[in-house]
């Protein structure tokens, strides 16, 4: 059972931050016992409920960062300070911090975020401050870049070169690893990107931890909706390590639609978009 909220608790929006053209953060005055990589379910009463990562976390506040993508996120984007959202969770297993192999501070870690996947990585990055870390942040274009000013040492990539380096963050990995010799790479973003990171890690024998996304219903590991090869992303994940990923042939390939139909990630992405 979860140690957090089993049922949604209504919380007032305390502040709204415009993170980019299509992304806002919603801040709440509440101390959430949250481990980076876990997620919460956000409820719009009478409408729907969806999973989100926690992107801000402090002693008396937390926040989530939401890309406007469909009806639900649109309704959220139309909300104002003082209005309430239902929050339950946190659920699932987060990242290992610090990972065993960098506990003594000698090792190096790399964090790679893609798109709004960065939202799952921000609290992780803050918890890793005492370690040697490289932060890579990719986006399609300048206007959708998230958190570019939140950290000093962050390397930015855009598909169109409108800001930072033109290209994917994964393109830079080979060189960076030669220089820094990573012990662990944490990643969250489009699954095709994470799958590339995982393959890279496998090749170089680096520990990899990736945060997966699947459509969720119960969020508590009973309905089987979020399955990825015998793993429940909501409960066994959403963060999986190299060992788990190696046995998940659906990773990077398949996901279930709301009906339970198993489709390619491309098809899932198209459905998920609206």
């Amino acid at each position: 059972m979860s140690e957090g909220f089993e049922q949604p608790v209504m919380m007032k929006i305390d502040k709204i931050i415009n993170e980019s053209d299509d992304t806002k953060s919603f801040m709440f005055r509440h101390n959430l016992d949250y481990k980076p990589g876990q997620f919460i379910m956000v409820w719009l009463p009478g409408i729907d409920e969806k999973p989100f990562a926690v992107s801000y976390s402090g002693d008396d506040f937390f926040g989530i960062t939401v890309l406007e993508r469909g009806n639900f996120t649109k309704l959220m984007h139309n909300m104002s300070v003082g209005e309430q959202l239902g929050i339950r969770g946190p659920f699932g297993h987060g990242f290992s911090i610090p990972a065993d192999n960098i506990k003594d501070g000698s090792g190096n870690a790399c964090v790679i975020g893609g798109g709004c996947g960065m939202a799952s990585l921000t609290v992780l990055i803050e918890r890793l401050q005492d370690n040697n870390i490289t932060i890579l942040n990719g986006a399609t274009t300048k206007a959708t870049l998230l958190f570019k000013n939140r950290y000093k040492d962050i390397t930015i990539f855009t598909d169109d070169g409108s800001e930072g380096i033109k290209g994917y963050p994964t393109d830079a990995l080979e060189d960076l690893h030669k220089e820094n010799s990573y012990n662990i790479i944490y990643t969250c973003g489009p699954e095709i990107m994470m799958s590339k990171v995982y393959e890279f890690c496998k090749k170089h024998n680096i520990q990899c931890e990736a945060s997966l996304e699947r459509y969720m219903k119960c969020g508590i590991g009973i309905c089987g909706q979020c399955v990825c090869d015998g793993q429940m992303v909501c409960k066994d994940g959403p963060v999986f390590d190299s060992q788990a990923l190696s046995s998940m042939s659906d990773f990077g390939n398949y996901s279930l639609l709301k009906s339970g139909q198993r489709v390619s990630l491309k098809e899932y992405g198209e459905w998920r978009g609206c």
Partner: protein
Amino acid sequence: MTTPNLTIDLCGIKLSNPTVLPSGFLGTSKSLLKRVADNGAGAATIKSVSFEPREGHKNPTVIPFEAGLLNAVGYSNPGAEETAREFANIKDVSIPVIASIIGTKTDDFVRVVDKLSANGFSAIELPLSCPHTPGFGLLAGQGTPESTKEIVSAVRKATELPIFVKLSPNIPEIGNLAKAAEDAGANAITAVNTLGPGMIINIEARKPVLSYRVGGVSGQALRPIATRCVYDIFESVKIPIIGTGGISTGRHAIEMIMAGATAIGVGTGIYERGIDIFRKICLEMETWMSENNFNSIDEMIGIAHE
């Protein structure tokens, strides 16, 4: 002292132990059924499948409360064709797998049975008892002896597999209904489906939490009622019963068996104790049986009636 024997014969199907994964829990993919088998379940049931795909209700669809879960998933499923594909060669799963089939009309059930006929399922389960999905179960009048007979008879003609009929705990004369199912050719009774429906309102939101507003109650809240249903059914029929509702310990399992169950379903218990609950329950049953001089499940079935 020899270890007690947990194997059972469920209308001809051999189970290594009496624990069964009920429909709606984890039964969305073959990979999860394998995992359930690895965690010690004696048999597993797939998520109920209709002929056409169904998206089900919006979220929240499942919500825990102090005494169990409230759910209104709305029978989401990818339809018969896709289900046949996902669960192809189901014998790859090391335990017997039961196909749960739903329909709004008698014909629907038969069409789904036909689609799944080549998969290798061990039995067909007919949940004529969902309390909260329009067009199905109780809301389609499927909880009467007449409609039960009609549906079971039709499916009986369409398959040689054992047929399990899953009943609602809401039915007052549940023994009569079980008898109607038995008379029409059912080979086992699954008792029970969720109770209610119930409603939980979030008072700050001033709205029911489930998007469908109401949902079926499972877990602890259901257990005494499920036990009574099994007790009543045991007095009415000769076919075996899969006692389901709120079981999360070996003691609960034995209680249900003493009430008359041959096998026991474990759903909401997964939330309470994790996916390895099947193994835990079996261990607890073994320990208790050793301490209380029972050698086999058979010796315990229905003995609370004596």
